[in-house]
């Protein structure tokens, strides 16, 4: 950028509170206990985590009776390593982020990859959730795109899923 261009950073902050839905409250309580819950739509059987309290595809309500626990572990099916722009993302550091498909589901959740060097990240790794710590029983605010209540993922150390298994999982993810 040339010298005659000045960048003015004027970041504003806006705090607000919103009352949680019942589904969101139960999800938050579960996160506090390091458990992951989902709602299973009674019509199409799609799983939603965090639960929405409805299935937007079938347009039906879901309640506690549709709540099930899902494994907070899965397989890394995709990832990227980000190299933040020094101008726009001050304080940003090189980090790996990836999509983990939860065991026994078609849910992929994105998050930062912890406990592994960016250069060593590869698809097929077995990962488990790194949980967000609740503050006064609440989820701290978060920006960006990613899972709710899960800070990121760390390797479990178990043997990798094979390339064929990863391709199979990705195929399953896209089936509507």
């Amino acid at each position, binding site marked *: 950028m040339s010298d005659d261009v000045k*960048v003015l*950073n004027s970041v504003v902050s806006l705090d607000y509170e919103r009352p949680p839905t019942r589904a969101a409250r139960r999800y938050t309580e579960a996160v506090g206990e390091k458990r992951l819950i989902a709602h299973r739509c009674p019509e199409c059987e*799609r*799983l*939603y*985590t965090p639960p*929405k309290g409805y299935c*937007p*595809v079938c347009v039906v309500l879901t309640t506690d009776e549709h709540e099930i626990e899902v494994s907070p572990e899965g397989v890394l*099916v*995709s*990832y*990227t*390593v*980000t*190299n*933040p*722009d020094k*101008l*726009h*993302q001050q*304080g*940003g550091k090189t*980090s790996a*982020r*990836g*999509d983990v498909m939860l065991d026994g*589901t*078609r*849910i992929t959740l*994105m998050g*930062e990859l912890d406990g592994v060097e960016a250069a060593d990240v590869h*698809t097929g790794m077995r990962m488990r959730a790194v949980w967000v710590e609740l503050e006064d029983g609440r989820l701290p605010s*978060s*920006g*960006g*795109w*990613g899972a709710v209540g899960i800070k990121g993922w760390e390797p479990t150390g178990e043997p990798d899923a094979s*390339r064929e298994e*990863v*391709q199979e999982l*990705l*195929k399953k*993810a*896209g*089936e*509507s």
Partner: protein
Amino acid sequence: MPGLLREAATRALADAELEWSDIDAVVFGKAPDLFEGVMRPELFLNDAMGGAGKPMFRMHTAGSVGAHTAIFGAHLIESGQYECVLSIAFEKQSETDTSRILGGGSRGGAGVAFASSIRQYIEKSGAPPHIGPLVAVKDRLNALKNPHAQLKIPGIDIKMVEESEMVVEPLRKLECCPTSDGAGAIIFTSEKRIPKTERPPAWLHGSSTRSEASGHPSRSWVNPLAGQQCAAEAYAQAGITNPLEELDCAEIYVPFSWFEPMWLENLGFAEEGQGWKMVDDDITAFDGAFPVNASGGVLSANAIGAAGLIRCAEAAMQVRGTAGEHQVPDVRRAMGHAFGGASQYFAIWIVGSEKP
């Protein structure tokens, strides 16, 4: 902002040899307001768009909004409500810092999510790593022929792309779109109000828009169902059964190199997992059998809200034979396409040189 819009609208009117007074209604599109930090800018921009006193509509579908703005303008004519409509879209990314908004801070944003879906594509299809750089070189070479392309890199080659800085793996800097300021405008008329210019009009043969929920747990970012359905509807309207044979070129929304092979599959130009082979075989090159983004595409100018409308306008210019140096020979039918949000909004139109 008013200047950008005024320039686009004035040029469109000059091309159609029409006056502001000929316009019955205005359709306005841009990506989310926070990109410029101005809430509902259409309210103060309306007079710059020639909309004072006229019906005016605002479209909102994130990055695909320009194509929706074009298609909605056409709908207003098709419905019989109006005889002459101006669709206009813009983005002025230099007005504020969209990198902060789209970058998503330390949690990662648009680039991270798209890079991750690109790796899913590579994993699924087994595409070799040079495909992304090939698309980047092709679009950047095309940009050299387009006076409205903004990022021009004479002498661009694979080596230059492969040696550029890694931004979000596997995307290098020259495989990413720039941030841009820009605007575009298209004028629609009913059949009885076709302007009497020497330059022929483009005819709308088919159009479609679709959306899907971003939180849909079984959706694919690699081959989204909404994109497939959007293409199928546009083809059905245009009477197309083999798009690769029956279309002559396409302007597809490719903000990152690898979206070209992904969308070639999503839009039915290639079988699933085979899109990268069309790139590898130079079929989508300017002198290939099916040129994609002869204008240089979004990789060469990405005024986000305008980019989809410009894809539609470029397709129209190709069938009108007015694309200048980047004119593909003998184009009878062409596609304009855009997607937006978390790969969840789609808009496609098919235009032709002949009345359908």
